[in-house]
């Protein structure tokens, strides 16, 4: 059994095989694999006895269920009004410079993906961003530098 098949089977065992299990399973795949591949979607369709197209239709509806490969850390910078007012463009510029990528891209080592996202619910502490699920608020270019260096160091020591 392929690794993906095994993973999806385990998730289905954990969350069940009803329609209601679909979102938790897809979220589980993203947690493990960072994105939902074609193969994974087919396995989900098989486990839940639904059409692959339906799985694709649901997955692509949700911004956090990436269907394209992403880096290990997905950075989502809030672009909604108050974060914009408080300088999110400056934050993005800083991140682009630090990571040497543009918005929407992944670093060549596959560690970071830089995205924009809609309101994170941190409007009183903007600009804000998520790295995977962790929020970072009241960002300044200096603060962003520190955060990225910390993540980089963590990667280095992990390897």
């Amino acid at each position, binding site marked *: 059994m392929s690794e993906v098949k095994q993973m999806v089977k385990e998730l289905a065992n954990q969350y069940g095989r*009803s*329609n*209601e*299990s*679909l*979102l*938790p399973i*897809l*979220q589980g795949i993203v947690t493990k694999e960072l994105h939902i591949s074609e193969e994974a979607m087919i396995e989900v369709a098989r486990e*839940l006895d639904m059409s692959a197209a339906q799985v694709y*239709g*649901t997955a692509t*509806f*949700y*911004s*956090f*269920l990436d269907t394209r490969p992403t880096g290990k850390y997905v950075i989502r910078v809030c*672009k*909604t*009004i*108050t974060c*914009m*007012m408080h300088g999110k463009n400056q934050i993005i510029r800083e991140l682009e410079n630090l990571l040497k990528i543009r918005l929407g891209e992944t670093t060549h080592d596959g560690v970071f993906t830089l995205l924009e*996202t*809609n*309101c*994170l*619910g*941190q*409007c*009183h*502490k*903007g600009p804000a961003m*998520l790295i995977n*699920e*962790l*929020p970072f608020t009241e960002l300044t270019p200096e603060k962003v530098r520190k955060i990225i260096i910390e993540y980089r160091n963590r990667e280095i020591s992990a390897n």
Partner: protein
Amino acid sequence: MSKKNLKRLDLIFKNEFDTEAILAKTLVRSHDEIINDLISSGLKGRGGAGFPTGLKWKLTADNPGDEKYVICNADEGEPGTFKDREILSSVPHKVLAGMAVCAKIIGAKKGFIYLRGEYKFLVPELNKILDEFHALLDKLDLAFRVAIFLGSGAYICGEESALFESMEGKRGEPRNKPPFPAQKGYKNMPTVINNVETLAHTYSIFKYGPEKFRDLGVKDSRGSKVFSVSGDTPIPGIYELEFGMTLQKFVDDFGDGDAKAVQVGGASGFCVPRKKFSKTVIGYQGKLTGVSLPTGGSMMIFNSSRSMYNVLHNYLDFFVEESCGQCTPCRVGTQQLLLGVEAVKKGEKPSSYLDKLLDLAETMRITAKCGLGQSVANSFSSIVENFREEMIY
């Protein structure tokens, strides 16, 4: 400096450590008594739509169904709103107690907190609290369990029927109404779906009785309200205030002294210009005109350095992406509004094109399938009408 005219309340966030006593006291009361208390308290839904909570519970209790559900709507996605996150972080037991009482009344064995994906970091702590809470329910002999259902980044799932669809493994597309959730909600069963804040308020009502709640606020808008204050303010944050204040008083307290507009109710709410501050009352009373405004509690303040064109552009950009896309007025209308204001700004369309867009916004308001599409017109029309020059030059 900001003044402090408005009374700051502390009903919601006061941590009282008496969940067990309040629940024990409430669960033994008759269902009618509890519902009557809720109705007479005047509590209305705090998500923005303002449906009377007691009535919602009563209707769901009266509708037959093999299973019933209580769902706490924590898909707080409206730009400028962040109060529900704070309530769930600091006083989750109040929300859970509200769900438990509701479950007993309507006959639900299962409840869910639909938590937006952006708040996933709250899950570990919430799960711990749920374990404690379930132990308490066992002690009180109430067969009810609450689970967290995590969203995955879709604003529209805050719309209740879209939320059900999402939980059912589908795209979060709003359903046709009728039927309403009280008749056919999650899995087509009678369902109570309440906003986080609403449920937290029920706790105060169980504890202090309906009168204390009723005494706060004004006619048709009773109780306190948690406001999320952001934008051009020296003191952004979460504040519990009384309904019925004028926007002027609010701006005096929270503005930076240069407020030119306040967006009340988030991107789907209304933009009020400075000259209307003193005439605008925050509350549910009357119709949805510029005079009184219901709100999910989002208050975004803009000072005179801000371009209202940029503000509107940001909102429209948001709606273009976050529309579920199923109904024509919302899917295509939002794109047309965005491209339309861009074209006017660039001089590619005459300024009179704004009138065609205002007309379109009105059509969206009366024809869109759900609250999102209907309410795009709120911000669009109020900004374009009040700041027309900024749209053109």
